[in-house]
């Protein structure tokens, strides 16, 4: 490779890095977006250089917590207290919760239990006195007790995202069926429907262990506690001794909060179950065998008819109104 060629490559990489930084800036304009499009199109090598910078950037962003921890020996700012280890991945997240984290908690107030319930199709955000924020998905019920020595939530039914304000002195405990979820400060999703529990972690560390009653009743294998890291998901059938830990994309699990459901190769039956939590008119599959059809795609949750129309783009189905709700029938004519 000649020296001149290396210089050209180097300049291209510089331009690619400039573009990436511009695209990530908050004040990006439409004109700049169009100039970026032209720059990509003008020479195939531009796209190659851009992909390299993008790929390295995404890798570094993904590894940011680990890198930051390693570099902690030489801190940049003195004003970051012990919370750093937990929140390096999102300095903004830390900034956002900092104000509430220092809010004094009145130890004199008796620990009252508050219950929150959401109806079908209703989403609700609850801000607790300790600064934690709970987002309740549709068809959920939970109760909260903020005591002096612990913050306790009982998830009776449904699903919620927990954004927990850090407080090492008062652990955040969530009882869901025969498992207890214990956290210090983090963001994760707990779902309990029809005896199936799942916990997905977006940030921080979460521990899931059997309740004392379940541990006493269950076999030794069932009494194990699991620590979940970001991107991990735990599934457990209540009453069963075992749990399953797998990798999950929190963006998919958390999407209901933004009014969208994201599926990657998931059975249609699960999609219908989720939709039935969102809308009062039940959706029924005519042929139960349809439930195993794999579905990938994004469903924006606005009105039920529109959602079903979009679903029909992702799976070979058509919708028929029926006395009980909406009937989905296999539409072989629409097979891709």
């Amino acid at each position, binding site marked *: 490779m000649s020296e001149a060629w290396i210089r050209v490559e*180097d300049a291209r*990489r*510089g331009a*690619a*890095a*400039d573009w*990436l*930084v511009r*695209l*990530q800036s*908050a004040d*990006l304009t*439409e004109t700049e*977006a169009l100039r970026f*499009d032209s720059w990509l199109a003008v020479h195939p090598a531009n*796209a190659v250089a*851009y*992909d*390299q*910078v*993008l*790929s*390295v*950037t*995404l*890798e*570094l*962003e*993904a590894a*940011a*917590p*680990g*890198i*930051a921890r390693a*570099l902690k020996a030489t801190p*940049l*700012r003195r004003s970051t207290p012990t919370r750093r280890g937990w929140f*390096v*991945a*999102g*300095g*903004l*997240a*830390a*900034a956002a919760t900092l104000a509430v984290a220092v809010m004094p908690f009145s130890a004199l107030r008796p620990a009252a239990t508050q219950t929150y319930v959401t109806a079908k199709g209703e989403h609700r955000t609850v801000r607790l006195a300790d600064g934690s924020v709970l987002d309740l998905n549709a068809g959920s019920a939970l109760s909260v007790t903020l005591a002096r020595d612990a913050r306790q939530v009982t998830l009776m039914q449904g699903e919620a995202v927990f954004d927990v304000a850090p407080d090492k002195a008062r652990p955040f405990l969530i009882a869901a069926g025969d498992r207890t979820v214990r956290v210090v400060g983090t963001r994760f999703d707990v779902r309990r429907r029809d005896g199936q529990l799942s916990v997905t972690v*977006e940030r921080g560390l979460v521990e899931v262990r059997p309740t004392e009653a379940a541990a006493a009743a269950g076999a030794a294998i069932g009494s194990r506690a699991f620590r979940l890291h*970001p*991107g991990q998901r735990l599934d457990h059938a209540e009453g069963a001794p075992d749990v399953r830990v797998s*990798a999950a*994309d929190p*963006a998919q699990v*958390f999407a209901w*909060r*933004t009014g969208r459901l*994201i599926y*990657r190769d998931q059975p249609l039956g699960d999609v219908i179950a989720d939709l039935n939590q969102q809308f009062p008119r039940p959706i029924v599959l005519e042929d139960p065998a349809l439930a195993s059809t794999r579905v990938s*795609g*994004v469903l924006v949750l606005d009105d039920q008819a529109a959602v079903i129309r*979009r679903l029909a*783009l992702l799976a070979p189905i058509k919708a028929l109104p029926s006395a009980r709700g909406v009937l989905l029938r296999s539409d072989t004519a629409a097979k891709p």
Partner: protein
Amino acid sequence: MIVAQDATDPLLAAYLERRQSLLRFLAARCGSLAVAEDLTQELFLKLAGRDPGGEIGNPTAMLYRMALNLMLDRARGDSRAAARDTAWRQIARSEIGGQDVADDPPADEAAASAQRLRQLIAAVQDLPPQAGRAFRLHKLEGLSHAETARVMGLSVKAVEKHVSAALKALTARLSP
């Protein structure tokens, strides 16, 4: 496939031609290829679902405007912090222009990734001081360009230059 159901629709034609560019655009904006894929598909569903009538002056401009709006819609319901939260991104990693890469890496890759992490750390440590500081504040501590500028006592433009220089140096060193 539902693609090209109406090839005469200029917006749909522009989309099909520019899908990769839009994907690259969105990947930088949202910091995740997986999310960018979803948004690119969402954009398509929006296009396919709209009324094809009506005059469109510049289809490409329209596409990018829609893509930017999609990001805004997303940011509205979601905190910026969550959008920037990167801890899980590696898990959902996919390749641009190709198929999705396996979602869960086998356990024996742990050693390889630990070695890679050491490479990443060394590369960040070796950055020139100002570029390194801007990179660490922006990428590792999650400050915005403006916040980084405030902490460093520089203009936003200068911060962007430093971050860009850091990314260029890191790419030169870390690209396969």
